[in-house]
């Protein structure tokens, strides 16, 4: 494989969650999504399809690698840097695999007042996640040693009336105080085998 021009910008270290996601490949579904999304924009504005394609790839593969970025750039006829700059800016795009179940806990005012920081502590305790190397900008995601769970703080998830709230992958959960962490976790059980 030839050297990617964005490899230095987008480092994709292995994580304990990597085993739960297939490596990047151009699937028929991805091709279909590209065709569908490109039809939604003027012919000379292919760049507009960047976010939809990155979402499609991240949903299946867990994160966006240099290889994925290069493919999106080529498919849209734009320079790889134009895709890399999007991946590195938006908090919703990851450069390494999360756990099989990725938990995003809201940390903004109403949820913090409602106990979201205590929820984070409890969840990390239950899953053995070490957040001591996490920060909000560069390394927001911390993965459990077994790779099944990962966690990050998110900013306001727009449900302040039912604080504290969180998301597990695409599932939304309300009023999850620390005492409910175990029940939430149990509804996303770890399995012993690795899956794709």
């Amino acid at each position, binding site marked *: 494989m030839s050297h990617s021009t964005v490899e230095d910008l987008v480092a994709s270290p292995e994580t304990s969650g990597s085993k739960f996601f297939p490596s990047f490949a151009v699937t028929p579904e991805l091709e279909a999504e590209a065709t569908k999304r490109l039809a939604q924009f003027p012919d000379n*504005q292919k760049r507009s399809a960047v*976010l939809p394609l990155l979402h499609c790839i991240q949903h299946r593969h867990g994160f966006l690698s240099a290889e994925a970025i290069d493919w999106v750039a080529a498919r849209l006829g734009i320079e790889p840097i134009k895709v890399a700059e999007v991946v590195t800016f938006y908090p919703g795009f990851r450069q390494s695999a999360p756990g099989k179940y990725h938990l995003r806990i809201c940390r903004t005012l*109403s949820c913090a*007042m409602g106990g979201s920081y205590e929820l984070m502590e409890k969840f990390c305790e239950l899953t053995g996640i070490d957040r001591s190397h996490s920060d909000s900008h560069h390394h927001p995601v911390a993965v459990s040693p077994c790779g099944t769970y990962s966690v990050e703080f*998110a*900013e*306001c998830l*727009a449900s*302040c009336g039912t*604080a504290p709230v969180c998301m597990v992958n695409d599932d939304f959960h309300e009023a999850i105080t620390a005492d409910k962490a175990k029940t939430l976790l149990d509804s996303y059980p770890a399995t012993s085998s690795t899956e794709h």
Partner: protein
Amino acid sequence: MITYTKQPDPREYRLIFKNVDRVGWDPSIETYVADGGYEQLRKALTMEPKAITEEVKKSGLRGRGGAGFPTGMKWTFIPPNNTKPVYLICNGDESEPGTFKDRYILHQDPHQLIEGMVISSFAVGAHVAYIYLREEFPAAAELMEKSLNEARARNFLGKNILGTGFDLEIYVHRGAGAYICGEETGLIESLEGKRPYPRIKPPYFPAALGLYMAPTIVNNVESLCHVKHIIQMGGEEYAKLGVARNTGTRILCVSGDVKKPGYFEVEVGKVTMRELLYDMCGGPKIGREFKAVIPGGSSSKILRCDETYKLKQPDGSAKDLGFWDIPMDFDTLAACGSMAGSGGVIVIDDSRKISWVLNNLNSFYAHESCGQCTPCREGSAWMKKITDRLVSGDASPKDIETLESVAYQIDGRTICAFGEASSWPVEAIVAKFRDELLGDTIAEDEDAAHNPEAEAQRRYLQNA
């Protein structure tokens, strides 16, 4: 008769939220049409597009996304001799801390939004529209794609809508977790596939130079829903709801230290702070007293519950208005030094240290700053660092001065309103809670630097 799984408060006027929590309701087009849905679209398509805009202007509808700009007026900013395609964008990026209303429209009543968008697109001459949804609403995105397909199948969308010759396509576009995509020009940049760096206005008013530098109308989810009701009752009737210059209904979202947080749709200006917090939200938590309220999303200036405001009357005299008597409208909240904003009412009681509250907000803005303007990029990070030290007991009284000074150096000096959004919380909280903040500082060794940053700060200020 409509019944709800969560009973609305008697003071509510359920217009936009008519179907939220409604018993027997589901988001399908069958249910929507059976309830009279899309009849207003039929009606609107028989009108002249300009006439629709006139109704919206007559209604006095003000944008419900946060800025409160008159919607009808915004629609008229498209250049008269425009030959470029016109776009309508629905701003579904709901991310202003304290706000949770568009969520329910998107997840429970998508066809109300679609109908409002088709009517609005017809009015402004758009044949392509986008619904920009925040990434964290995946269920809403899926539902909206399905709902748009349902609308297409019934010819409420697509080519030659209802045989009128009007073509319109609406596409869903998901964001990726950045608050600044709620800024209309940041949203447009994001739709163009780039980093969401907002554009400076003027000249980049979207109605003139928007998506792909073509005329673009960006409206909030709720605002676009109001358009349907304005067509239904007519602009003049709609303007009878609410109070003068603050017409219609709005959805208040109350969170934080109240017994019963939640959403409440009320006529603008017909509910006071007292009624909202005590009668509708059940008052403070047991054993607690209300301390302060952020009335319009985290970017709005905080109000103390023990304040009295001097409001200028039309005859030039000044009248006193106590905090609890503030009607929840646009103009009075502005006159009291804050804003109605997005309707996100965050309530703080006496168990909270205001330094902690401020630090939580500063962390939000430091994280969400897009970084293109130096005052905001540097200032938001700086303010967060100061309040980090304030909360950890490592700040000096001079730090409060610095905090305030940094905020005022951001305010008014940035490309977009995020500068004000990040600085106003600091300005207002320092002004109104100065003593409490100073109480969290360490007065001794004021001149001694207690960490490298404080030392650098001290040296800089000495030479400034």
